[in-house]
């Protein structure tokens, strides 16, 4: 019998629909895999085996009754613990939300349940999605299932969607939700040898997702293949009146239109991304990607994105500024933690609660955000950053007059070891290739390109025009078909 946990999302969907196995069998197999890996990987903050079985039982009953099945019927998934799930603890990996059980369901998670998916559990992440290694979680670090050969040191699964990437790579979930503010889907996907796409800003509703930086946050799928991502994104996307920035556009049938044939397409290679001192193996994998896209029929064009070098600094003003406003809501009054020292007044209660509830990185970003928005500094920092953001977006607009998609590395290195980066700035610099597309609201995905000399995955990033997820997915598919990436972490847990 097929090892169910080795199947892709579409393999599970088709197998359940065709009667090769039941949704209940699939849920049972993944529940067991989750339980077995939890101690070693810490990918989940809470597990919900009963919810996965209940969703599967409904799919099996619907199939037996001859009812139409949803796009994700019988597929159990992991949900990043940033999505509000009714009755299931939702923490954003922060102590300040410990025990918080939403009375409502986020739009994206509801759409996934409506499509027939089931919940295996809530996945660990960097606290409030602030981080690139999953080390800022208040519920413990996530350990990547990948290791260097003959070396047991724990590697970072990337972040902030590090529980999602680790769980998919370890084959304890077939697919997971992620959110991407400055690279939080793409970088962890690259670190763990999986695929993930951040759609155009506004494609997926933000309603019910714990807010970090509202002008940047977007949800997206993380899975084994480009096709899996296309299917799951179809289920997640769509207009939602409850999100003022939701795009009122129909959701295309991305899966049906998938094609790795890029004849007539132009692929831009941004010369500014060829950083001085760029890791030679990353540069080599980028060259491989260029050759693969040429082989798929695309024409390769040298392009310039002159303001790219300012993207990180722009991001690290705008994202903390928005975070400092969004996180003002955690006050110890309406939900979550309250720290009320003896005799404290209301203001002292706020300050004590926030000191006790937020982690160091979250506090640091709130303080930076508060500073750049404060009187006297607002124009010099925040307004200046918003102007540079306009220039960064304009660079992409100009480039997309010449090309259909852009190819770049996803991250400047493969996975680093947990505990290796202790200076916040060193961590921020790892987002250099992912942040520009975020600032411009563009669809972007990471697909596995190969392994480096340490045996660790490298990812390639494709950035597309606004609303052109199809172009991004197709170029991703062309790479996937040629990279032939089949490496899996050796099971040690």
């Amino acid at each position, binding site marked *: 019998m097929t090892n169910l946990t080795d199947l892709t999302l579409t393999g599970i969907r088709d197998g359940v629909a065709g009667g090769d196995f039941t949704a209940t069998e699939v849920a049972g197999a993944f529940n067991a895999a989750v339980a077995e890996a939890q101690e070693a990987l810490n990918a989940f903050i809470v597990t919900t085996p009963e919810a996965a079985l209940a969703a599967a039982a409904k799919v099996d009953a619907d199939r037996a009754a001859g009812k139409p099945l949803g796009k994700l019927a019988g597929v159990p998934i992991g949900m990043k613990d940033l999505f509000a799930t009714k009755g299931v603890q939702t923490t954003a990996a922060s102590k300040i939300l410990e*025990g*918080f*059980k*939403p*009375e409502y369901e986020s739009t994206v998670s509801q759409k996934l349940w409506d499509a027939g998916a089931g919940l295996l559990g809530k996945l660990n992440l960097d606290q409030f999605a602030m981080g690139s290694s999953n080390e800022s979680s208040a519920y413990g670090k996530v350990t990547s299932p990948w290791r260097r050969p003959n070396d047991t040191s724990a590697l970072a699964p990337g972040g902030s969607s590090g529980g999602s990437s680790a769980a998919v790579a370890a084959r304890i979930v077939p697919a997971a939700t992620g959110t991407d503010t400055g690279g939080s889907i793409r970088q962890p996907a690259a670190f763990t040898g999986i695929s993930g796409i951040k759609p155009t*800003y506004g494609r997926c509703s933000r309603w019910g997702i714990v807010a970090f930086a509202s*002008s*940047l946050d977007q949800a997206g799928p993380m899975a084994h293949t480009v096709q899996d991502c296309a299917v799951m994104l179809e289920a997640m996307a769509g207009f939602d*009146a*409850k999100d*003022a*920035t939701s*795009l*009122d556009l129909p959701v295309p049938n991305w899966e049906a239109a998938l094609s790795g044939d890029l004849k007539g397409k132009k692929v831009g290679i941004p010369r500014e991304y060829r950083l001085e001192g760029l890791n030679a193996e990353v540069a080599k994998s980028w060259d491989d990607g260029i050759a693969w896209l040429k082989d798929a029929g695309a024409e390769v064009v040298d392009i310039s994105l002159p*303001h790219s070098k*300012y993207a990180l*600094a722009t991001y*690290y*003003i705008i994202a903390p500024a928005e975070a400092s406003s969004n996180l003002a809501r955690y006050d110890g*009054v*309406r*939900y*979550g*933690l309250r720290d*009320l020292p003896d005799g*404290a*007044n*209301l*203001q*002292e*209660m*706020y*300050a*004590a609660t*926030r*000191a006790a509830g937020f982690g160091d990185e979250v*506090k640091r970003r*709130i*303080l930076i955000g*508060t*500073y750049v928005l*404060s009187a006297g500094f607002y124009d010099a*920092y925040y*307004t*200046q*950053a*918003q*102007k*540079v*953001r*306009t*220039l960064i*977006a304009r660079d992409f607009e100009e480039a997309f007059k010449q090309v259909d998609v852009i190819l770049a590395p996803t991250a400047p290195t493969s996975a680093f070891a947990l505990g290796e980066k202790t*200076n*916040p*700035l060193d961590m*921020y610099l790892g987002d250099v290739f992912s942040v520009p597309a975020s600032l*411009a*609201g563009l669809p972007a995905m990471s697909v596995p390109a190969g392994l480096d000399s340490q045996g660790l995955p490298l990812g390639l990033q494709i950035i597309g025009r*606004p609303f052109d997820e199809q172009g991004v997915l197709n170029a991703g598919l062309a790479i996937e078909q040629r990279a032939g990436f089949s490496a899996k972490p050796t099971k040690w847990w």
Partner: protein
Amino acid sequence: MSVDTATVAKIASLARIKVTPGDLEAMVPKLNGILAWVEQLGEVDVTGVEPMTAVIPNTLRLREDITNADPLTGGGIRDAVLANAPAAEHGFFGVPKVIE
């Protein structure tokens, strides 16, 4: 620009985060490292450039003028609103005394 402990204490107070003198000492160099690095934005010529307000053009919509059209965002759900409050009392959010 760089910040000193007094400035960080002021920012922390604005952000309603209690900090100890030890926290301040640890935060100042890290915050200054970040601020020194973002200074580079000052060199960009932004003459005549409008600050970004919406990354993907969109229009602001008005909802239908119907009460509770969507029960998820409608009213009449006091108990659900209070369900996660650390100190709900008599149908209200409880807070320390605010009147002197």
